[in-house]
């Protein structure tokens, strides 16, 4: 501290300043003192507070200037200046060449020759077999019960000690279209294994953040109508495939009267599952509340059509760990996609 003072004193001696404001943030002769370098706590916190205050003031000034400019432009009848778009991770996502394009013939050909095309074209109705890992405990059974209510035409079979490959065969004989295996770890459902049949791919998801229906406030009770499906943000080829796989679990003809919607929303490689019942309503919105000055518009009430949701059913997130071609065969199967630690190195790179 003393050294810095002396050094500064020596420098400023040229300028002829006797006492230098140590809190001076403007770089004098390219010497910038960071607030974090001051050892005295009181002084340091004071300097830091001042710094923050200055920053805040600057920010407010900028915002005001921007608002004024846009207002002026509107009044003059010109176009308002460009609104700044905040930079988000989705905006700055790394360019992925596997993103599906609208004019991709190969994609459609692939879709037709897909394992799911039979179900998706409604040649076969989906029939789902749900089972667990060998040791099922605590939240597992409750979760499975809820899954049974979400997915129509699903059946639960106890696991016993059968090998998974045997279970796959058994299910094929009974003409199931897919198997869901709920894996429990430390008394919590931990992973979901989705196996398409007869020779569909096997997707291994990691399950997290499970909230059961009874733990949701103001939850609704689902009916047995076929639900609508909403699949969001499945952009890449891999995502497309996973999306189709999820789609093949549900019947393709929803019953709109039931007003049930099941959502799989993909965001940054996390697939969020939600289950809602919805209602369309007319909402009266008072217009012009923001603008306190123009009292004329305050009385106007605008009617807007909105949709309201009531959450029912479980809520969880999935993350794809691996996608294997063919039914379950970890040793001999061919993996289309496996998550490796290497893939997490960039924050802007997503695969689904």
């Amino acid at each position, binding site marked *: 501290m003393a050294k810095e003072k002396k050094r500064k004193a020596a420098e400023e001696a040229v300028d002829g300043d006797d006492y230098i404001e140590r809190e001076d943030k403007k770089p004098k002769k390219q010497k910038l003192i960071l607030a974090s370098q001051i050892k005295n706590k009181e002084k340091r916190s004071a300097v830091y507070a001042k710094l923050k205050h200055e920053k805040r003031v600057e920010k407010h000034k900028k915002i005001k200037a921007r608002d004024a400019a846009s207002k002026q432009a509107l009044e003059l009848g010109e176009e308002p200046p460009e*609104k700044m778009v905040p930079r*988000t*991770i*989705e905006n700055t996502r790394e360019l992925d060449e596997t*993103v*599906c*394009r*609208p*004019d*991709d*013939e190969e*994609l*459609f050909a692939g*879709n037709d020759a897909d394992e799911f095309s039979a179900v*998706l*074209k409604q040649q076969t109705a989906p029939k789902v077999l749900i089972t667990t890992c060998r040791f099922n405990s605590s939240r597992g059974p409750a979760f499975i019960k809820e899954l049974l209510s979400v997915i129509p035409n699903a059946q639960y079979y106890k696991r016993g000690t059968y*090998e998974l*490959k045997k279970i796959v065969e058994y299910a094929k004989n009974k003409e199931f279209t897919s198997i869901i295996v709920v894996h429990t770890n430390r008394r919590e459902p931990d992973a979901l294994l989705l196996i398409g049949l007869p020779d569909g791919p096997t997707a291994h998801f990691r399950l*997290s*953040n499970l909230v059961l229906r009874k733990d949701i406030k103001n939850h609704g009770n689902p009916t047995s109508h076929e639900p*609508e*499906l*909403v*699949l*969001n*943000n*499945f*952009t890449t080829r891999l995502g*497309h495939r996973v*999306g189709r796989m999820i*789609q093949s679990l*549900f019947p*393709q*003809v*929803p019953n*709109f*009267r039931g*007003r049930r919607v099941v*959502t799989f*929303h993909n*965001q*940054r490689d*996390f697939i*969020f599952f*939600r289950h*809602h019942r*919805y209602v*369309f*309503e*007319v909402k009266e919105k008072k217009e012009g509340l923001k603008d306190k000055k123009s009292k004329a518009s305050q009385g106007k009430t605008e*009617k*807007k*059509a*909105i*949709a*309201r*949701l009531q959450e029912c059913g479980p809520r969880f*997130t999935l*993350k794809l760990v691996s996608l294997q071609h063919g039914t379950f065969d970890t040793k001999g199967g061919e993996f289309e996609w496996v998550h490796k630690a290497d893939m*997490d190195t960039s924050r802007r790179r997503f695969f689904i």
Partner: protein
Amino acid sequence: MQNDDVIWDVIRHHHCSYMAKIQTGNFCRNPYNVTGICNRSSCPLANSRYATIRDHDGIFYLYMKTIERAHMPNKLWERVKLPKNYMKALEIIDKHLEYWPKLLVHKIKQRLTKMTQYRIRMVKLSKKVREKIMTVPRKEVKRESRREEKALRAAQIENVIEKELLERLIKGVYPDICNYDEEIFNKLLDKNKVEEQEEEEEEEAEVEYVEGDYEIEEEEELEDIEDMGDFLKANNFDDIEGDEDDLEEQPAKKKAYVSYPLKQDDGTEKVRRKGKKVVVEVERDEDMGNRQHNAMSNCAHQKLRFWHVFGRISRFFSRQSYQFEGIFFFFFCFRFFLCRTMIDLWFYSQEMLQRDSLLL
């Protein structure tokens, strides 16, 4: 000079590094020990003539040591490979240990039996599929949970779902949700549509994948991919079909949730779904009347024609001077039709009125 007793004395009463003393007794850790117990007769160090069976990679070897080689520890143990066949192995043991003390031979055969048994069991187990427990480093677990939280916040799921549902409603995917006043709703939705178009540039393009997007129409491919990618917005992708005007206005987004093929000329497809009113009503709810002509089969066409005529009649009656007669007509039909269809009819006639007034 090799004196077994002296060796044993020293080992037993002082210290043997191979001895493991546990609750049930003394055990010997020496790999050449036949029985595994610390005994005078089982100690490989205290017996100058000794034999064992050891296994390397599933193959059993008979090891023998004799007093003649006691001074050459390097060449002390002689090894004979035993065949995998149990009986043959027994014969070979007998052959090599012919004049050896019976107790030792017996112990060796017992050991051989046990080892074959556990070899069989190991092979069986390795064929069975067991779950492999893998550990995940804590750093990764924490990182994943952090990222998940942020993704959840960025997702704004409820808003997205509501928007999606509204758009589907606008599209006319829902034919008969009867908990809202259809007229008001349609008006509002049209208003909403106009507002939304202004805002559309600022919205983040959500790529949505709607169930059942496999309409096999002319532009199958285009339809299918309509929901995907920023490309749609970027390239201002327009649905080429002139009929679907509203799609042109909302290029990037949704598709009618019609999950069955709407082949335009093929009446056979329709016949299958004759029972479902859904098809016809989708057409009706749309304000774009052109769509009706294309996607209908003969029977539906006839149906529509019937309602068309009906509508004209009701429109006729709804004129000022014929109000009374109109009501009578209404109730007359009421007796023959279901209530719901009557309401639909009423709305339909209102629509026709509207359209007429628009045309005028």
